[in-house]
């Protein structure tokens, strides 16, 4: 296995807070890797640094060996790296279908001006909505969906861009057990189809259930990593959680 994503010595400071203090780890191609850690340990900031929403002060982010830390979010998405946000985010005034269509292709502005939001893409978008069970809501403004439906829509939206690597920030946060189960199943299914995952999640049962590898962060650094059952028993991890 080779590293699809490699984070090396990334630092990010907000005023007096060092949110990332030299963070390094790898995400192997084809894996489901979970990123866990106490509140405020820098997980979301790391996602931002990897996806172009926050430029690291120091360090490198490499996607298949290519440095991407200076690229804008749209460029990084075009390279096959999609993400969801911790606070569920959809385009509330666009319809569910339009939400997905926004993400279908990354055409230039000139192309975009000439292209109508087209039939072939519509079909693909509908397939994906079908896949996450919200196809019947295609015409509804996304703002009127329930919380769980918005989460599914978020995943559908990034799926349509055919990403190689998906970063999910608390996909099971705030959803009921049935939906959590559903989301876990989808992640496994998609992984079997070749998509690599990096998942931030506080629900330990969920994490232990889906992950091949677990990376543990505390105070902006990686303090442990390995297979789920090894990490679970790591004293440093227990200490970070209890002492936080």
């Amino acid at each position, binding site marked *: 296995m080779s590293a699809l994503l490699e984070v090396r010595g990334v630092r990010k400071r907000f005023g007096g807070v060092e949110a990332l203090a030299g963070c390094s780890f790898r995400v192997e191609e084809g894996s489901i890797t979970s990123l866990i850690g106490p509140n405020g340990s820098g997980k979301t900031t790391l996602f931002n640094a990897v996806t172009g929403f926050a430029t690291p002060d120091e360090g490198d982010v490499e996607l298949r060996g290519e440095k991407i830390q200076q690229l804008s979010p749209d460029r990084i998405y075009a390279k096959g790296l999609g993400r969801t946000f911790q606070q569920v985010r959809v385009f509330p005034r666009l319809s569910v279908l339009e939400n997905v269509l926004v993400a279908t292709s990354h055409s230039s502005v000139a192309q975009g*001006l000439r292209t109508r939001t087209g039939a072939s893409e519509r079909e693909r978008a509908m397939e994906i909505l079908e896949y996450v069970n*919200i196809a019947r809501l295609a015409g509804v403004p996304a703002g009127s969906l329930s919380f769980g439906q918005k989460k599914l829509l978020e995943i559908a939206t990034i799926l349509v861009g055919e990403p190689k690597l998906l970063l999910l920030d608390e996909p099971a946060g705030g959803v009921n057990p049935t939906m959590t189960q559903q989301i876990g199943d989808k992640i496994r299914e998609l992984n079997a189809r070749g998509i690599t995952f990096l998942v931030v999640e506080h629900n330990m049962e969920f994490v232990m259930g889906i992950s091949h590898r677990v990376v543990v962060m505390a105070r902006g650094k990686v303090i442990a990593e390995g297979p789920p059952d090894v990490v679970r028993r790591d004293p440093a991890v227990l200490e970070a959680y209890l002492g936080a």
Partner: protein
Amino acid sequence: MKPNNMLAAGVISLALAILLPLTVLGSSSAGVIAFVVLVLAALWAVYTIEKRRALLTSLIGVIAAIAYPLVFNSTEATTIMFFALLYVAIASSWNIIGGFTGYISLGHAAFFGLGAYTIALVADRLGLSGGYGLFAVALLGGVAAGLFAIPMGYIALRLRTIHSFVIVTIAFLFMYQLLAFNLQDATNGSSGLAVPQPDWSGAFFNIPFYFAALLLAVLTVGLAAWIRNSRFGLGLMAIRDDEDKAAGVGVDTWKHKFTAYVISAVPIGIAGAIYAYFSSYIYPQTVFDPMIDLTIVLSAFLGGMGTLLGPILGSLVLQPAQQLLTLYTGAAGWDLVLFGVLFLVVILLMPSGIVPTVVERMRRARVQEAVRKADALSQDAVPDAAAEGGQG
């Protein structure tokens, strides 16, 4: 009441409230005519929304607009509709950046003024005389506006917040006004500039201007419709809803906003040039006028920002009202009072504008039904406090 009846009732009573006092006030038939126009426009809007036959109803609207000056040929009647159509173009164009993209520019009057000064200066330097040819020169007003919009957009959109954008655009407008006052050699300062008189006159005087404004309105609405249905337009609306998220799913937000800004300047530049030719004399304070921006925003806001129909409907309501007020009271300033009152009424009763309010009401019932069904299926019982969705 059914929602479409509600819209009709709403628009018509709004029109009544504005125009009835005016028709009583004035002795000419222009008020009555404008009122009839408004009611027709409202009915047309209702039909369009309800039946979604945009193309057919637009065609009917255009035919009605072509027939209008043949039926109502008084100077007042054609002047009123000239301004209404000019503002249909201006507000629809502004809507591309202000409505679709959500970046409220309060400085688009800069492009109006740039267009106006372009036609005046070009005609003067080239020694052109009045005639139909000057309408071609008016196109240069659009070119100039577009060219100036490039550095302006670059600066105004650099800071990535809507607040800073609003402030910078206002600053631009006043900067141009100051320049127009102070670059005496080019602009003649506060004495203003003359534009050559047309070589037609009399009762026919308004007609070419009317059709120029109509053509510009049709082309601009067409442009806005094209953009709204394009992939580019979808990107703009995604930016309006959530700019970060848009970037996160591959929308090149900077290029989208910049392009929308520059495009939206062009028709307004042409409108400014047509206005300059129509009024035959321009001053810095009348073409680089913040009132123009207030009018644009209020028109778009009244009808519904970000919808195609909104700025059209808003302009068709507001312009006749404003023109009639000026016509009958003879005093400037009453239109400001009207604007203030209207702003309050709209904000209080329909904060998202006429068209979105009605469309929303019509949809809500259907939507809730669909959401409930799907929810039952996916067994997702978590209630969502934020189910209202955004609007603005």
